[in-house]
């Protein structure tokens, strides 16, 4: 079983986002990047499958800031191979998916597992786009993948906790919403150790002529706090005001 896990970095939303001077992008100099949480879950589910029945897990990513460290971290968690795709800068989702497909086509692949979405997907989600560039079927919004017989059984999530179960032949692209367990943690010391021993392969992106077909007019922030009346003071004072408020409204006595 060969499992390919495309992963990417996204801005850490704990930090303040700023708009650059063009008004059409984030100010990337001030961004702190981190592994997209859904890709972290995709990697986890792939590593669970490896633990359960054996698989070769390959993490791949488009080159960018701190991408080497992200890939070495994936290796430290248990990925067998790590590959960096070079020659693209801040690609759209369509371009990234196409570059991923170019590279994956040349590798044995039974399952391709990636995050269901990322916070910066302006032109669509990579998981299903990638399936179309690869020309293989997909199931997205998945919360469990189990290998059975020659294929897999996957659970797809609808709203309100309703699930649908599908059987699929391989190869298949899976958009992972959440792994069966919380993504594993790896200590920094182990990542450092892996950086010395693991090999990071580099592959060129190949042709990416995808039609993005739209242009960004502007970035703008939602009007912050526009709706809420803010309650000031120390934590104790704020808490007292909140309790008074809900008592005044008759919600609690």
């Amino acid at each position: 079983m060969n499992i390919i896990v495309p992963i990417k970095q996204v801005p850490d939303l704990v930090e303040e986002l700023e708009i650059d001077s063009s008004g059409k992008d984030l100010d990337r100099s001030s961004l702190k990047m981190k592994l997209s949480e859904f890709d972290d879950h995709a990697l986890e589910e792939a590593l669970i499958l490896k633990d359960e029945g054996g698989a070769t897990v390959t993490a791949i990513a488009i080159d960018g800031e701190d991408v080497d460290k992200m890939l070495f971290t994936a290796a430290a968690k248990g990925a067998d191979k790590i590959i960096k795709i070079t020659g693209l800068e801040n690609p759209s989702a369509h371009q990234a998916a196409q570059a991923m497909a170019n590279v994956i086509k040349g590798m044995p692949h039974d399952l391709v597992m990636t995050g269901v979405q990322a916070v910066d997907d302006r032109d669509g989600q990579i998981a299903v786009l990638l399936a179309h560039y690869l020309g293989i079927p997909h199931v997205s919004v998945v919360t469990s993948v189990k290998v059975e017989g020659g294929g897999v059984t996957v659970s797809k999530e609808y709203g309100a906790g309703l699930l649908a179960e599908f059987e699929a032949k391989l190869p298949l692209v899976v958009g992972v919403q959440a792994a069966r367990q919380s993504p594993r943690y790896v200590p920094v010391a182990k990542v450092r150790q892996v950086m010395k021993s693991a090999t990071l392969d580099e592959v060129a992106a190949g042709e990416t002529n995808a039609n993005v077909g739209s242009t960004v007019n502007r970035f703008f922030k939602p009007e912050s706090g526009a709706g809420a009346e803010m309650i000031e003071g120390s934590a104790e004072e704020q808490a007292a005001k909140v309790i008074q408020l809900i008592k005044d409204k008759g919600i609690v006595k």
Partner: protein
Amino acid sequence: MSNQIFVIAEHIQGKFDDITFELLGKGKEIASQLGGELVVVLAGHNVKALASQLGAASKVICVESPQLENFSPEAYVKTVNAVVAANKPKLVMTGYTSIGMELSPGISVANNMPLLSFVSELSANGGSIIAVSQLYGGKMNVESQLDGDTLVVSVLGGMFKADAGKVDGSPTVEDFAAPDFSNLSVTFKKLIQPEGGDVDITTQDILVSVGRGIQSDENIPLANDLAAKLGGAVSCSRPLVDSKWMPKTRQVGKSGLKVKPKLYLALGISGAPEHIEGMKDAGLIIAVNSDPKAPIFDYAHYGVVGDVLDIIPALTSKL
């Protein structure tokens, strides 16, 4: 290219998802601005009778097959792509939903149409279409302009009013032959209903809802204590369920439950679109977050900037 505006209908167990009506309401507006025709693509098995609920549209293109009885990504992608390829609509509207997310990328790639995702606003400007995407967890809006004439949009739920699209009527129903379904590699097996037994958060008057700001599952008892004092229940945002800190039955949001309590305390919840969709209609929303710019404050009636680990015990001690 035709001047048609397509809405891809979504239904599970014989019932339309609200997103279908939300898309229809907005689609009707866009169709009148562009002088186009609003058309619904309705795929399923024995679904023709449902067309009477789609009176906002002038036409329903109906594809029926036993293999479309339950949603299955591969069969539905083939179906929708065939209908789009045959009609060449100007705009295809899908939901940013579990079903819509399987369909929009295929329409884009197979028909060489641009795709915009996380869409929260849509308008026609002259002959062209402008869309706003809510990116970065709702922290940044990005306005995009079409380069060409055609577009696929993946629209967030709860952004447009469903009532505007809920019109009974008798649109023209046009049959479209189902494509070849031999050699499908993805097969629907069954629906699994949500497990019951836990607290039903949709019937609670008071919800103490916790998010990532709670930092560790060890802090969840703080929320339990507060909920007990208030006579309410604890609910949560998606990341806490994905981390297995809270059960799925307590999740508020697009992929969880929609709630409408009298009081919704959002504690350490930033307010990603996924979450907002599930709670924005609550009677009184009070949000506590350490980030004064958190999107949750746009939807809350009252806001408290602070650390939930300080505020929660302070609230509990005052009851």
